[in-house]
């Protein structure tokens, strides 16, 4: 096993689509730990969803054996990081496990918002940063401009940056060499009291939770009894090892090393990312810094379309939870939708990932309610409530005031789009705008935005108005006073509780109009008129009508049509189960989805 001097721990960070995963793949391939025949593109993105969207959601690690130009063999630990703002805490823990990062910059796009955000994050962790310019194979590549931006905007040495094409493999070996020569080896004493940082965990159906750690001090071995310093539980280590795509069992992991262990931990939820492991008998005096409990910020209720699928949904969530500690859920019920679960997510992407996995991996057909943030409600009697579910919104007369969560957003774009982005931010109740011109032609807009506006459809709109050139990042900043109302949707006078939402009073009418119009388009006509209304309390603020059918009859029905027609009736009967009945109006799943969908063209 390599000594500390021959170990390097690093992450690759990049703006989305700048080629992080492709570069990681090339590095893995070059180090020969997996045959080309077995090579699946983008090995690290093991979730298909990540592959489809080009976003890394779960981080993993891989240990690369590398013989450097100096003839010595090194152990390079690549710790992959999630590439989305929803998972910024996970990113920070992965970075805390490294001594350095490779910062990838796209040769044609240059420095983007996330490039900057990632750089700041790396600097916060005192990491050495090695810039790499990628995609030099593109016709639109401008390596000199990228070098200039790296120097001017990032304050790094752009002239020394390795320029590569990860896709074609050009100059990739130089990146490995730069890792060895430019990144510092880890510090730490193998003989000290054990302190190991958990940066990720995953569920293995045969062994329980596999926990990924960076050993900071001391030595982790099989047979030791360890303690989670924040979680408080103790476990006996069954196996330790390193990852070379496959697991390689080792005798021990010493200070400075990155690897995995099993300790009979049943579910991922029993571990906390960022927790410190120490020995039960000889514990370290204090945990490693930076621990935070992952807190959900976006909430939505999930219902099965067919009520009898509820047990399957419960089962599926239990299974997802095994691998996704940040997913929280509890039973919920709705008059319109029956039994379901109120779920908390790290962000909208996290919500979408969970929804897609439930639908694809578990074959469930789902209805999700409008995503909500968590509001703080201050009652007249001095009570304080945290409300994220419109169902629990108290009587407005008893409320003193409300507060809603805000973020500080950073939007990076070519200067010509500022005229479109600024009104968008103001429309979304943006405040404290601040413009920064990192270099001619580009602008970084900082703005305070309510999180509720961000999770609505801000990102889609931003992409539209900047024709895809705008990039966006944000961090939570705290709560501010807000004028909140509860908007109800009524179908033929009956409240559809699952469509209720908490919104800012200025936005209520627009949201109500959107909802009633979407419902009008997607509720099939009945033999009677259907009135759809949006209301705050007893005040109707929007309405639409689905006209009654005049006619519902097939023109021709002769001897050859009988069987087909009967089968159609029988099929419709099965289809009825998939409709939700509100009063006497059947509402199809797509109507619920349509209300939640926002128009990005409007």
């Amino acid at each position: 096993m390599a000594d500390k001097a021959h170990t390097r721990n690093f992450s690759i960070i990049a703006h989305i689509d700048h080629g992080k995963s492709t570069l990681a793949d090339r590095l893995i391939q070059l180090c020969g730990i997996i045959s080309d025949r077995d090579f699946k593109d983008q090995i690290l993105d093991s979730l298909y969803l990540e592959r489809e969207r080009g976003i890394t959601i779960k981080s993993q690690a891989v240990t690369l054996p590398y013989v450097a130009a100096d003839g010595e063999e090194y152990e390079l630990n690549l710790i992959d990081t999630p590439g989305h703002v929803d998972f910024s805490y996970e990113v920070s823990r992965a970075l805390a496990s490294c001594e350095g990062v490779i910062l990838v910059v796209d040769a044609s796009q240059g420095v983007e918002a996330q490039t900057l955000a990632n750089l700041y994050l790396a600097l916060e962790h005192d990491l050495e940063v090695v810039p790499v310019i990628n995609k030099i194979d593109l016709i639109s590549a401008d390596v000199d401009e990228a070098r200039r931006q790296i120097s001017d905007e990032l304050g790094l040495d752009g002239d020394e940056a390795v320029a590569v094409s990860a896709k074609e493999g050009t100059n990739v070996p130089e990146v490995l060499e730069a890792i060895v020569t430019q990144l510092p080896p880890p510090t730490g004493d193998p003989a000290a009291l054990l302190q190991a940082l958990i940066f990720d965990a995953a569920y293995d159906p045969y062994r329980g939770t596999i926990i990924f750690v960076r050993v900071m001090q001391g030595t982790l071995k099989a047979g030791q009894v360890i303690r989670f310093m924040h979680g408080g539980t103790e476990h006996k280590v069954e196996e330790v090892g390193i990852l070379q795509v496959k697991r390689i069992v080792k005798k021990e992991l010493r200070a400075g090393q990155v690897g995995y262990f099993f300790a009979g931990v049943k579910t991922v939820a029993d571990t906390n990312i960022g927790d410190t492991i120490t020995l039960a008998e000889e514990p370290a005096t204090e945990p490693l810094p930076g621990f935070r409990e992952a807190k959900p910020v976006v909430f939505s209720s999930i219902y099965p379309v067919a009520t009898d699928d509820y047990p399957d949904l419960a089962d599926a969530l239990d299974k997802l939870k095994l691998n996704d500690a940040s997913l929280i859920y509890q039973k919920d019920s709705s008059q319109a939708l029956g039994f379901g679960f109120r779920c908390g997510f790290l962000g909208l992407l996290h919500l979408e990932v969970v929804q897609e996995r439930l639908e694809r991996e578990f074959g469930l057909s789902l209805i999700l309610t409008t995503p909500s943030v968590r509001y703080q409600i201050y009652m007249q009697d001095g009570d304080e409530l945290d409300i994220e579910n419109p169902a629990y919104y108290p009587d407005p007369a008893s409320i003193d005031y409300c507060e809603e969560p805000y973020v500080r957003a950073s939007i990076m774009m070519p200067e010509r789009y500022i005229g479109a982005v600024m009104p968008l931010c103001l429309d979304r109740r943006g405040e404290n705008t601040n413009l920064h011109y990192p270099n001619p032609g580009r602008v970084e807009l900082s703005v305070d935005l309510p999180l509720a506006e961000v999770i609505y459809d801000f990102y889609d709109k931003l992409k539209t108005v900047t024709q895809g050139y705008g990039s966006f990042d944000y961090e939570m900043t705290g709560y501010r006073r807000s004028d909140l109302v509860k908007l109800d949707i009524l179908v033929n006078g009956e409240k559809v509780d699952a469509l209720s939402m908490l919104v800012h009073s200025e936005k209520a009418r627009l949201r109500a109009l959107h909802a009633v119009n979407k419902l009008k388009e997607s509720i099939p006509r009945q033999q009677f008129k259907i009135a759809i209304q949006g209301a705050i309390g007893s005040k109707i603020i929007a309405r639409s009508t689905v006209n009654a059918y005049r006619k519902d009859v097939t023109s021709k029905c002769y001897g050859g049509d009988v069987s087909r027609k009967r089968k159609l009736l029988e099929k419709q009967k099965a289809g009825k189960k998939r409709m939700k009945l509100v009063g006497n109006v059947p509402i199809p799943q797509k109507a619920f989805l349509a209300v939640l969908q926002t128009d990005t063209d409007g």
Partner: protein
Amino acid sequence: MARSGLGLYLHLPYCPARCPYCDFNAKRYDHGEARRLLAGLAVHLERIVPLAQGRPLDTVYFGGGTPAMLPATELAALLARMRGLMGFTPRAEISLEANPGALSRGKLAALRSAGFNRLSLGAQSFDPGLLKAIGRGHTPDDTRRAAAQARQVGFGDLNLDLIHGLPGQSPAQAAADIAAALELEPKHLSLYELTLAPGTPFGRQYRPGQPPLPGDDEMAAMEQHALAALEAAGLERYEVSNFARPGMECRHNQNTWAGGDYLSLGPGAHGHLSGVRWAWLSDPAEYCDAMERGEEPHAFREELSREQRALELIMLGLRTTHGVELAPLAALLGTDPRRMYGPAMAQLQARGWALVRQGRLIPTPAGLAMADAAAALFA
């Protein structure tokens, strides 16, 4: 069931050309294949004789396709074989579907003397522009001539098929079509609303209710006018799309709608015998292959449960002004249908779609317009 005689439906799939709205089992005429099919039909006819169990045929229906485009001698020969093998009842109704463009006085005379006594002409419209737009090869005058000649050779029982709701058709044009049809004094008229069938050129080209198709209000106006005009002319509505002078209803179809038995012959033809439904292979070549190999050319065969048979009776009966006979339904289910379908029957009446009278569930005019939704209540 009281009104039930035995029917036979013969399907002849050939047409001079495919119409862009049609999704029937039909294809362009192919001489060689048609010869082969006629031979196959002769064989198949002999094989289905035992299904009749000695019952004579009360109705025979030559449908298609455009059966009248085959030579009169061949059609006559087929009919003669049926008569020879199974026999006809004294008042047997023998229908033939025909395209106005494919008829001559001589042919009509030959068909009439071969025993056909009911002629159904696919007029579709009397507007030359609309006829062209829907791909029909005949003119309004072809229809008028064919109707006159049919009457001269003794086809007293004449039906005209019309389609309304055609692309670009105005309510005035639709009214003119009805008037033109009534001038020919048919004993029977079938009026269909254009159906956009998936997989047809029209199905791909048009959206229901969207221009150039008439909108909701125009469609309602056309229908309202047609119902009134037909009634005034003495043609009573007896099914969603069918109108006749009293006593001139198509018995073959009435038998189908009452859950009666009918045999079938030809590619894709459906048959029904006491709760067993089947269809023959729809591809003429495959149908003939099976015939030549001595196999049954089944495309499907299903035995219905009592509930399925009951559902069919309701579904079909709610499309007719006669309504659903409750006694046969009770016999089938072994229980009072009012018990089994209580909520659905209550809904029907509450919505004003049907009444219970004289042991029947009788749809109102509003109920006829909502027959699909009405049947769905029983599923």
